[in-house]
């Protein structure tokens, strides 16, 4: 089963941007569970795109103006939600931010 871990945090989380993952990546790779991962530049550098009535609508900034923003992501393979939850709980970002676990459809 494949899950997306969305690593979210408020502005204070930016201070952790250079922390690395404290061996989490290596550990997950060793288990053969890590499909992809990446840290993101701050939401101020985001651009959003929509097409409505064949009109291209562009705006600066993130999709939703919320306090917590996506700072990174991981795609992992786990047996079930319990295993994914334990993996997310081990991620260093869980200690200062929030990790949202989203199962892939099918």
């Amino acid at each position, binding site marked *: 089963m494949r899950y997306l871990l969305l690593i979210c945090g408020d502005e204070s989380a930016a201070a952790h941007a250079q922390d690395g993952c404290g061996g989490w990546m290596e550990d997950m790779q060793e288990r053969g569970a890590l499909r992809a991962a990446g840290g993101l530049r701050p939401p101020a550098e985001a651009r959003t795109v929509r097409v409505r009535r064949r009109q291209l609508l562009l705006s600066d900034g993130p999709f939703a103006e919320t306090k917590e923003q996506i700072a990174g992501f991981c795609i992992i393979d786990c*047996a*079930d*939600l*319990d295993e994914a*939850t334990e993996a997310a709980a081990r991620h260093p970002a869980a200690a200062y931010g929030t990790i949202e*676990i989203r*199962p892939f*459809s099918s």
Partner: protein
Amino acid sequence: MNTDVKAVRAAVDGAFRDEWGRVVATLIRTTGDWDLAEECAQDAFAMALQRWPKDGIPGRPGAWLTTAARNRAIDVLRRKAVGAAKLREVAAMTLPPDSPAYEGETDHSGVPDDRLRLMFTCCHPALSLEARVALTLRTLAGLTTAEIARAFLASEPTMAKRLVRAKQKIQHARIPYRVPPAHLLPERTPGVLGVLYLLFNEGYAATAGADLVRQNLSAEAIRLARVLVRLMPDEPEAAGLLALMLLHDARRCARLDASGDLVTLEDQDRWLWEATAIGEGVAILEAALRHGRAGPYQIQAAIAACHATAPTADRTDWPQIAALYGRLAEFLPTPVVELNYAVAVGMARGPGAGLPLVEALEASGKLAGYHLLPATRADFLRRLGRMPEAAAAYREALELTSTDAERRYLSRRLAEASAQA
């Protein structure tokens, strides 16, 4: 042979209470499909209604129903052209055999059966508490969506949606179907305890129709609680819950009079209380309390023990009970606990002390639509001799209640209050 239609109906009803959860739990394990399991269980019961009048009631209804549901699942899967491997797996699933060994696998084996697995999955923390409770009552106890909705003061469509979403989440997010590993058990247990207690209450005072005591549901809750206590001897809250259930259950026979009307605790014939169950409940509670980790179930059991061990209603230790409810409110700050606290204060210090607490609760609107709120206010007013107001409050409670026995009790009180008004 034509078996009496009434007898068949009774047998199917009985089998439904006894076997529904077991049939569903086993089918989920083998098919991995919750909707299919429920559907096939339902079909099996429908088939029983058709076949048993002609063929006679089988000696082991549970085995008959599980086999019928399994065969139905194979048919459905075959039509869906599921792979041969899956079909073989379902066909080979462990069935309750037509032998006495099946009896042995009830509550003395210490081995968690499929229903325990189902319970832990239904109570998974990834589901909302409401969803966990609804799902357990639906899949394990076989309550209808309407009954569950009534128990939680929600509408039927809301409850139906809740159940669908919960099952989708289990399937799509892949919530495992298992008893959690040892290191996860402590954090998963409270959810299971909460659901068991609700299950017990559903059996103790059914929410619709005339059968106020659906003994089997309470017995099932007690049975599963005993399994839990055995599995987790160091979890005092599990023991506290078991003690609480036993202490309530001990008073079952005294709760209704000969015509099926509710008898209040005060008026119950204490000779009808089961001394053995009370003794067991108190002993289990005392052992649990020795862990020194009090929790909501142990406190509620302590309250029940105060009632169960009082020789007469007059000699009930109400100040102690009021103090325990105060403590309980710290763990469970719910309006129902507040209402019970108000009742206890009314008993400990007089109706004049309890009435303002009930009125404040009513003003907050937190229990709007809950019949026991106006019923409690009515009792305080009656005891204060304010009969016209009491009569109005009894009328209000009557409009909100749905069980016949409660309606009769409230009508009797209303007549008394009206006569003295």
